């Protein structure tokens, strides 16, 4: 695996489809290709709507198009999940807590991370 992924791979996918930045800007409903250039050069992060539009245009999931960004977010969420797990484990061991615990562990398993104290 590469040490760190790029924030996004928009340019890579655009070039594979032989689209210009102006073509993609038109499909996004944006004014000019300059906006697309800013996304491709990691200067700006697109809105959710624009990210979803990219998924439609390139027919690749947002997670794949914004691989580096996704990894960062995943890392932060897993760190918070660890803290949440500790909170859950400190409380009453009722059915809700058990279900919540399982959800947090499944969350980590679905990602590439690991949580501590899973006994």
């Amino acid at each position: 695996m590469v040490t760190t992924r790029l924030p996004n791979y928009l340019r890579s996918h655009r070039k594979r489809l032989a689209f210009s930045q102006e073509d993609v800007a038109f499909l996004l409903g944006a004014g000019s290709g300059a906006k697309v250039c800013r996304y491709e050069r990691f200067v700006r992060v697109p809105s959710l709507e624009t990210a979803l539009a990219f998924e439609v245009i390139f027919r690749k999931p947002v997670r794949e198009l914004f691989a580096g960004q996704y990894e960062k977010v995943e890392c932060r969420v897993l760190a918070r999940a660890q803290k949440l797990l500790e909170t859950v484990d400190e409380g009453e061991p009722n059915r809700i807590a058990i279900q919540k615990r399982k959800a947090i562990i499944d969350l980590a398993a679905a990602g590439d991370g690991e949580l501590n104290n899973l006994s």
Partner: protein
Amino acid sequence: MSRNHQKNSRILAISLTNRGFGFAVMEPPETLVDWGVKTVRGDKNAQCVEKIEDMLNDYAPGLVVLEDASAKGSRRSTRIRILCAEIVAAASLRKVGVSLLSREHVRRVFFGDYKGTKDALAGILAKRFPEEIENRLPPKRRPWMSEDYRMAIFDAVALGLGLGAIHDQQDRRHGMPHLRT
């Protein structure tokens, strides 16, 4: 930089030309992330270095690979040799490793016996990366033609893959599993 880290690094391969340079950004094992040609005018070296520095900032490669302009038998111009040194300096400032590969080495990787034209090499690479660069394949060069500017893209991709071949060779020598297919 450890050999393992080098092998897993993003590579920026650059092929210097009279008009600017061709480039290829690659991620292991063999994914082309970006590719193209940059054309410069005026103070060519300064402009090339500026554009390459932008790419170093944007792509944060772990390695830069260039043609060894000072290799035995190399007929690159003085300007290109100086530019090569400037790029090495720019990369080193950013603590980015640099590999210099000779043309002979690249030919050996793809043709085994040093014989093989640039057109043939470009054809091989176009088949290997059809989505990415097949549509940039220039027509076969005739004796009266200058080299097509798009050939620099294929030269850059060849440099990137040539570096990968070195890493694989080193792995084999050290008894490590061959990671590339």
